[in-house]
């Protein structure tokens, strides 16, 4: 289980306030589809994903910011991510059929987007976000069967 120190939690909530979270979420999803085209298979209904600009401008991609806003919930229950994400875990297994490896990839893309937004403030010592991404990925895989 991931252990968050007080510094981790402060860094996470601090960055959450600074970065535009909805925008980071939309950008992360777009970049996931551009950098790892194999993930496009999960988004058949999104329409035109034929190029990097088509993906980043696609209105359905932009509207899918639920990915990050659900992470807002994670912050309120950071010490019990498994319970918080249990319903989403079941959804991703039973309905969406997403291989949990993809949660790690999306988490890493989110880290890169956050680094882009926070710039030099995102020092190596700020490890809270990497831990959070790993914790959420694990929690989302937890109910798989």
């Amino acid at each position: 289980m991931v252990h968050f120190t007080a510094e981790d939690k402060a860094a996470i909530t601090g960055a959450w306030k600074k970065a535009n979270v909805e925008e980071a979420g939309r950008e992360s999803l777009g970049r996931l589809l551009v950098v790892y085209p194999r993930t496009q298979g999960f988004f058949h209904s999104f329409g035109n994903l034929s190029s990097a600009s088509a993906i980043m401008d696609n209105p359905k991609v932009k509207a899918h910011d639920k990915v990050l806003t659900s992470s807002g919930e994670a912050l309120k229950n950071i010490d019990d991510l498994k319970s918080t994400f249990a319903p989403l875990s079941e959804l991703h297994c039973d309905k969406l059929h997403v291989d949990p490896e993809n949660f790690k990839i999306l988490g890493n893309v989110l880290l890169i987007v956050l680094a882009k937004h926070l710039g030099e403030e995102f020092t190596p010592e700020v490890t809270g976000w990497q831990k959070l991404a790993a914790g959420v990925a694990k929690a989302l895989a937890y109910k798989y069967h």
Partner: protein
Amino acid sequence: MVLSSDDKANVKAVWSKIGSHGAEYGAEALARMFLSFPTTKTYFHHFDLSPGSAQVKAHGKKVADALTNAANHLDDLPNALSALSDLHAHKLRVDPVNFKFLSHCLLVTLAAHHSAELTPAAHASLDKFLATVSTVLTSKYR
């Protein structure tokens, strides 16, 4: 996995923007990796890993120089990286998973310092480049 001509152009463009900061970014990527992925420290138990370590700085420069060499030989990476490939296979024997950790930390470092350059397309090209380098470095393992 093949680097397209667009990928090659993107990699070269980002590399020219990095300029003389390569060593600094290499060291920062290593620092990020040791902090975020502590298992990677097992390969550096003989190093001083405290912040600002001269050994980490020197090693960051080695990593950056190797990547610059790779960026200048995109059409022939196996040859350009042959010596390093031998080193990693026969001497260092770094588990392949760790190349992903370092590649990720390099991208995070670039994103923090060059957000404008790291467009989605450039991000994709760099990711492919680092993955290709990693594959070459582990190609002689067995």
